[in-house]
């Protein structure tokens, strides 16, 4: 991994909520074309990392994306810089239709034909969304909302996708489907930073992984290494 | 040994402090009552100060009772002055027309109580739309209610129409204001720290979940509206007999917004906040009088700045320990103690 390959560098990241520190100096990096996964128990601070990177929470430390310091950049400029974030809990606009949700995600794009192409692609990936284009986002079932959230991230044409538990609440077929789609997107050249509870699958598709415990990175390695690590097996893979 | 010793000591101290509180409130109340009676009887307090204290008391009653709906239950009622009007007119009609003048002074508490009950009855009726409607829709219901009350009063010549009603004697004295203020704070505090009060809170937090957790949300709403409007009616009765004159315009939307401002200034869902809000607002209005017109320019600015720096009001969602029930405090203290021990024991 050379410096020019580095897409995202996070160093010494600290995040506090109401005076209580949730992240205590986290450092890691993501290189172009990788899938990197963060695993950790509930409340370890995984989501907080993603929120800091996409500018939703204030933080101490540095986040550098393609050589550019993201600190003090408002969240919408960070999206423009090429980072899309599928937040925890999906963040669907319940009063917008499925189609509008997708179009809104392409807010900063000017190239109409490319947007139309991407829209088609999202509908191909998730045919259920095509059937429901006119339905309000708030009326979708949990799984449908998740598809919509991932679809939105694709519509922004970002280079780096931050996915926060994309498989949460999905049926087994869809879980596999989502992971397949993540690998596919990745093969097409997108870099993915993935937060997952389904550590089995996450470690399978990830090039590298970091393990987070109470706001600190305690372990890192390739996906395969960690999947084989007995401590990890016991703590996160259920034996 | 040493550590458990200290922990025990803190616990024991705490317990003593709480048991001592058993006497704190009765003592405060007794002193307050005694002082107000003395002040009333022997006039050693300036009449102007007395009048302002009376206003403060009435405003505390209004603020605390509106806080029950707007702060604890999380609704946005903008018709509180309407309930106040019902209480004021009922009580005044009783002292002026029903009671013979010789017993008006004795009958005063009964008249005020009747005003409260009349307002409570109306509050019951207003609660019914709240079963189906929430938020701003309910705000309009309360707004319309306030307008209807005003319009009805304007059209009944028997109560003076727009000319208003007079003939009341100045029966609102410091002791009575003290009594009713203390009563309203005490009763609403009791409600808040009861099963029904927690029901009120749960309606604010998540009505559907509350319903599914066995809370009878309709019952809760009725209780909240009835209690709140009861005290608004009481405040109305006191107000009428402090000014010796009422007219429908006194109870318009501007009066309601005044109470709203006091509630949110002091802080939602906080009795201490309501008291602080009412005291500060009433006193500031008087103190800033020399500013003339600029007083009314300055006050709203102050409010805006305060809301920006303390969006939930001065006490928002916080309460002084003095109002919390002893039982809860003791469990909480015990719990903190164990937690502290656990963390002390940890390496």
């Amino acid at each position, binding site marked *: 991994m050379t410096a020019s390959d580095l897409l995202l560098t996070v160093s010494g990241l600290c995040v506090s909520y109401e005076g209580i520190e949730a992240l205590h100096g986290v450092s890691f990096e993501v290189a172009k074309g990788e899938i990197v996964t963060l*695993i950790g*128990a*509930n*409340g370890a601070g995984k989501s907080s990392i993603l929120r800091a990177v996409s500018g939703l929470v204030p933080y101490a430390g540095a986040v550098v994306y393609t050589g550019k310091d993201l600190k003090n950049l408002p969240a919408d400029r960070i999206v423009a810089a090429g980072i899309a974030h599928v937040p925890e*809990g999906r963040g669907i606009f319940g009063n917008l239709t499925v189609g509008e949700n997708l179009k809104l995600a392409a807010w900063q794009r000017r190239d109409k034909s490319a947007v139309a192409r991407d829209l088609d692609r999202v509908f191909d990936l998730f045919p259920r969304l095509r059937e429901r284009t006119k339905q309000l986002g708030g009326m979708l*079932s*949990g*799984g*449908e909302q*998740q598809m919509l959230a991932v679809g939105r991230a694709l519509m922004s044409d970002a280079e780096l996708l931050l996915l926060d*538990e994309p498989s*949460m*609440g*999905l*049926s*087994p*077929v*869809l*879980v*596999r489907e989502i992971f397949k789609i993540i690998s596919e997107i990745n093969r097409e050249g997108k870099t993915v930073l993935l937060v997952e*509870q*389904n*550590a*089995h699958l996450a470690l399978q598709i990830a090039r590298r992984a970091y393990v987070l415990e109470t706001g600190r990175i305690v372990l890192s390695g390739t996906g395969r290494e960690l999947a084989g690590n007995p401590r990890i097996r*016991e703590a*996160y893979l*259920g*034996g | 040994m040493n550590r458990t010793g200290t922990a025990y000591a803190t616990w024991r101290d705490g317990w003593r402090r709480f048991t001592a509180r058993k006497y704190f409130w009765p003592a405060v109340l007794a002193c307050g009552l005694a002082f107000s009676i003395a002040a009333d009887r022997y006039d050693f307090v300036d009449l102007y100060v007395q009048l302002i204290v009376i206003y403060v008391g009435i405003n505390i009653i209004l603020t605390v009772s509106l806080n029950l709906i707007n702060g604890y239950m999380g609704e946005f009622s903008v018709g509180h002055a309407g309930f106040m009007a019902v209480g004021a007119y009922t009580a005044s009609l009783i002292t002026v027309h029903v009671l013979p003048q010789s017993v008006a002074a004795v009958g005063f508490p009964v008249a005020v109580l009747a005003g409260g009950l009349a307002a409570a009855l109306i509050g019951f009726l207003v609660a019914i739309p709240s079963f189906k409607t929430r938020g701003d829709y309910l705000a309009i219901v309360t707004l319309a209610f306030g307008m209807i009350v005003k319009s009805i009063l304007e059209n009944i010549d028997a109560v003076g129409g727009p000319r208003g009603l007079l003939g009341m004697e100045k029966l609102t004295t410091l002791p009575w204001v003290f009594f009713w203020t203390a009563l309203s704070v005490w*009763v609403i505090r*009791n*409600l808040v720290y*009861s*099963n*029904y009060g*927690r*029901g009120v*809170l*749960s309606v604010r*937090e*998540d009505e559907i*979940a*509350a*319903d*599914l*957790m*066995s*809370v*009878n*949300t309709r019952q809760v709403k009725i*209780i909240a509206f009835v*209690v709140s409007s009861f005290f608004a009616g009481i405040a109305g009765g006191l107000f009428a007999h402090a000014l010796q004159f009422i007219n429908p315009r006194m109870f318009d939307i501007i009066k309601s917004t005044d109470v709203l401002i006091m509630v949110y200034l002091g802080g939602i869902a906080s009795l201490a906040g309501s008291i602080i809000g009412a005291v500060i607002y009433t006193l500031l209005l008087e103190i800033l009088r020399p500013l003339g017109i600029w007083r009314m320019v300055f006050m709203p600015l102050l409010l805006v700045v305060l809301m920006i720096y303390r969006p939930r009001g001065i006490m928002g*969602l916080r309460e002084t320990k003095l109002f919390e*029930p002893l*039982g*809860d405090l003791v*469990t*909480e203290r015990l*719990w*903190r103690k164990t*937690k502290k021990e656990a963390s002390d024991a940890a390496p």
Partner: protein
Amino acid sequence: MPLLEISGLTHYFAGLCAVSDFHLAVAPQELVGIIGPNGAGKTTVFNLITGVYRPSEGSIRLDGRELTGQSPHAITRLGIARTFQNIRLFKDLTVLDNVRIAHYGEAAYSPVEALLHIGRFRAEEKRITVSALDLLAVFKLDFVAHEKARSLPYGLQRKLEIARALATRPRLLLLDEPAAGMNPNEILQLMEFIGWIRRTFSVTILLIEHQMRLVMGICERLVVLDFGATIAAGLPAAVRSDPKVLEAYLGEEAAP
């Protein structure tokens, strides 16, 4: 006699048939799982049982008593409690109050006693508080009893939701995706936990879940929904190899 008996349950949302002709009988102490693709109508079934929605057709009986048309709190008082797919705690209240609120139905004092703190008030409050603290202790949540619910980590919030549901003293407990957002290890713990709840509180449980490990591990019987219709029902082993279920829900690769 079954504890819960649902027959011919049908529900439409503005033309969309979310549940159609659903039948289910649950015997006391059973643990039945409802699975199915996303949007199949599982949560809607829970909402119909608990009275959040009124069914378009069909009947729901608890111990032979008709539930349809009753308000949610009345149904809860008859003995049905639930958790939510998206956690719905009373976030600005303390953990203790969250559980005490669920005692609403059983507090035996009148509003007047509450307003004046007289009569049965003190004894009842003490009883409720003790009962709530006991329940929290059983759930090992007592150490956060005075924290605001919003400040709890996700896992504890899920746990608190279950505790709150049990505080209503249900006979039937409905769990909607309790394992969502948990890692495999935590899911294993949850499985044990659910079994333990069932024994300790002797409740009947109806469970919606997508984590096959949990479903197959603890459910005695499964119902599979797809597009609101029941496509399979029976023992987990049988259901898991049902071709329709494989196609609609588990995916071909999961075939044994």
